[in-house]
């Protein structure tokens, strides 16, 4: 099992989610994060004083998949999140030791994503 963790622009998320869903990977989590990198901060002007915000808002996407689905996920993220400008973000891949579904207590790769023949809620 692998966890793919990607820091992306907000606008890249929706096409990534859509395509992963179509390819049978509906399960993911996102969080709003702020961070710094090569992209510069934003200078705000407030009643004459300027204020530099050095961290930019990004979206963190976390997806845990079977080993063989990892490349598909990474490619999908690269395809939609890359604009070619500084600030597109980064992807990290980690090994995952264990996965447990809280509702039932079952364990293993079966809990990760949907499988053949299982209907998933269609996002639009």
């Amino acid at each position, binding site marked *: 099992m692998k966890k793919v963790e990607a820091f992306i622009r907000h606008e890249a998320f929706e096409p990534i989610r859509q395509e992963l869903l179509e390819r049978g990977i509906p399960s993911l989590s996102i969080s709003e994060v702020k961070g710094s990198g090569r992209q510069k901060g934003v200078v705000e002007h407030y009643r004459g004083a300027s204020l530099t915000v050095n961290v930019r808002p990004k979206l963190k996407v976390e997806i845990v998949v079977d080993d063989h689905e990892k490349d598909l996920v990474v490619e999908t993220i690269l395809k939609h999140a890359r604009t070619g400008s500084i600030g597109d973000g980064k992807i990290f891949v980690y090994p995952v030791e264990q996965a447990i579904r809280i509702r039932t207590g079952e364990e293993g790769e079966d809990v*990760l994503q949907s499988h053949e023949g299982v209907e998933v809620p269609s996002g639009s």
Partner: protein
Amino acid sequence: MTKRLSLVALMASVACLVLPSLASAQGPNAIPNLNSELDITWVMVAAVLVLFMQAGFLLLEVGFSRQKNVGAGVAKILVNLGIATLAWWSVGYGIASLSGNKIFGTEGFFFHHGQEIAGLTVGGGDAALMLFGMLFCAVSLAIVWGTTLERIKFGAYVIYAIVFAAVIYPLVAHGVYGGGLLADVGGKPVMDFAGSSVVHLTGAVGGLAALLLLGARKGKYGGDGKPRAIPGHSMPIAGLGVLILWVGWYGFNAGSTFGTTDNFFAEVALNTQLAAAAGALAAMAVIYARTKALDVGMAGNGAIAGLVGITAPSGYVEFWAAPIIGAVAGVIVVYGILAIDKRLDDPVGALSAHGLAGIWGTLSIGIFGSSRLILEGASPGIWYGITDGGFAASLGQFAVQAVGVAAIFTLVFVLSYATFAAIKATIGLRVDEEEEEAGLDISSHGMYGYPEQFIPAEEFGFASRTPVTPDATKPATATAMASTPSQA
């Protein structure tokens, strides 16, 4: 019930429309009495507009505060309005009234019907004027707290509000409007039509005294001593506050005619509008030239500065002078905020918008005061003095205006500083660091102004609120798994 009420309201509004024409139809004898009632009606409408300004101050201060300090602003406005009302009714009005000596009035305490004040018996019309004055006092008090946002102890509001509404503001009002020392300075009166100095400078100086003892918000000045912006949480709320104040100012200035004679109040209202517009535009232009940003907050401060600037001259200058006065106020407020921000942390810019613009407004009568409009015994402004040869007299009037500003500044500063110093020495003026960090809403008022910003709402639409223990003897089957889509 609702229908009957709305019928009454309709009849009342019809009566309002018909009454003036009835008055002229009934012959000259009926007019004076009806005129006086029309005058008082206008004063009452204006009083409501001035009361509405409290909403403006509330939204302006809340918008310029961070999310953790918004509830405190609400509590403060309501408590201060309450204290100002009772303190003015019981003590303040008596000190401010036309009675007594040149320092303070001696009649009118616990204002009531039939009371003798300065040789006159109190009736309904006097109640209207007393109420109008009360709301001015409340406006002046509201201005004080702009400098103290996000760090002052609530108890300090309460104590200072009592002293301010019972003693400090009434002394100033008596000095200028109650036949006090400033009504006759070397034969000339200090002219302040609706209170650029009496109300706005007084409030700002009280705020200055508080600020000097209170210090800056945590994080306002970096290790290098340079000021940092602490952006307020909502520019739309602050903007709404500015516009409500703008509306309220129609009552504040045009109501200070105390009547409808010659429809002069409309001229005062037009002056007010012209100055506010010029103030907003001038501030916007100046800040854009300096920072290349069309600064939202500064445009609001500019409008307020224009309004404060025209407050004193609104009844004494011609229309052409009003935009000039407003524009100069708009320029002053920007440079004032930029200069003051280097040393003093004034979150809403009250020292500049009410203090500096108030001083400018009071002095501007000495430049633009029109001989058609000024008080008896006063001299027209320097502008007229140059053309009609009365330059020395005009310069004298300008000096008298300056004396008025200096006297009010000194009196209010000394009394306010002493009061705040006493508060600091006893109950303390400032919340502790931890409370400031957490925000006044939760630390002083026990709840967040925006609870869901700080406490997440519960999820909607899940089946059971009670935790379920999976049955260990029956592991979930494949069909059970398939029946529900897998989700992370």
